[in-house]
């Protein structure tokens, strides 16, 4: 009993001090805020198309070049390949392979990040259905680096993550024209028709998945 009485007395004492002792102790409540990093969004600037002259023969192959080494290695905001005079935007690219003729359009996609110099990972995935398979094996993922001449164009293997530094490298040279926090990349690749072939004069379409994530 005695220990219990002592304990009660101590508790009562504490309550008394808390209620009446404003001059002895104080507790304030203050806001603490934090904002999460902006979501990464991929915007389709130009849809990928293999044109209108794909042959119906089964197991035939059509290639769309998405990384033309003749025209340099970095894509600017407007889709221009920086070190060359040619643009991918609204421009047909000649197709190759026995399965098609004429021209197609490379896919152009834009990612806007939260900060200059953020590093992101991009994965372009294959797609396969009953009519065709698309392997995105020819593309350009620019990797912007400060200074001149150091920017690189990474060719992404299908389904394999690739990292890229996103920065507004406006110092001239190969990076000139890039926009802060903005990364554009191109996707081309190989279209293979199904063994059973396709139907003449028929449109075909599907979707392939692009994953982007902060590193």
């Amino acid at each position, binding site marked *: 009993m005695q220990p219990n009485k002592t304990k009660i007395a101590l508790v009562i004492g504490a309550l008394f001090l808390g209620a009446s002792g404003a001059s002895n102790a104080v507790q304030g409540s203050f806001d603490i805020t934090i904002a999460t990093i902006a979501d990464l969004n991929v915007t389709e600037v130009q849809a990928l198309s293999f044109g209108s002259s794909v042959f*119906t023969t089964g197991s035939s192959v059509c290639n769309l070049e998405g990384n033309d080494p003749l025209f340099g290695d970095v894509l600017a905001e407007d889709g221009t390949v920086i070190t060359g005079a040619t643009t991918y935007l609204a421009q047909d690219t000649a197709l190759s392979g026995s399965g098609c003729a*004429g021209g197609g359009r490379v896919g152009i996609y834009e990612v806007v990040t939260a900060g200059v110099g953020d590093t992101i990972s991009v994965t372009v995935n294959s797609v396969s259905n009953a009519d065709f398979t698309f392997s995105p094996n020819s593309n350009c993922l620019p990797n912007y680096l400060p200074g001149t001449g150091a920017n690189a164009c990474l060719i992404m293997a299908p389904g394999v993550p690739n990292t890229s530094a996103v920065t507004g490298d406006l110092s001239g040279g190969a990076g000139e024209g890039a926009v802060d926090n903005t990364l554009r990349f191109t996707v081309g690749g190989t279209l293979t028709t199904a063994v059973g072939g396709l139907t003449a*004069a028929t449109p075909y379409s599907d979707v392939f998945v692009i994953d982007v994530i902060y590193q």
Partner: protein
Amino acid sequence: MKFNTLSKIFCLAGIIASPLSLANQTDAGISFTTVPDVSILQLQAIQFGGDMTLSLNDTCSLLVSAAVGPDEVDSGIAPNAVVGEAATFQQRGGSCDPTNAVDGTAGIYEVSGGAGVPVKITVNTLTGTNFNFVPTGAIGNYDGANTANGDSLQDITADTEHTVNLANVNDVINAAQGGSPQAGKTKIFVGGTLTASTALTAGTPYTEQFTIDVTY
């Protein structure tokens, strides 16, 4: 109260660390359209005339080539130019009367397919019941450009695959050639040499069939 505050802080930290807020998965479209089936249509039957002599191995030639004719104008390489069709008789040689200028017309065949798409054309020899036939001729080959003079006639060699481009939507030819190309089309002009493989009967029409192969 303390416990509750700590609980909220942990919860915020959990959201920041969640990969869902840092990543994005996007479905990107891919599309294409297949070419239309290729087809061939006879506009005018080949006709060697009505004065072939009767002996075994007699020949009659219908002279059709890019050099001899029809030329780029007369060929109607612009498909809506009517010159070269029906009313134009080709020069002949051999055991049919070369001086008869109103007999013998080239075979004219129209190929249809995808605009600007290359096609492979083979005009085949014939070993017939009463005569054999070795074709010559010319095929319109389009450059797909909107500049004049880029289109041409390509000579035919029998049993040989020739690759030519069908006219594209932008094809333009020289105004002197008399018309506008039709997208997705070209023409084949066929003459050649016919050789009697039997003794023929006077006053009798003879007809055989030869083949033209067209593929993408």
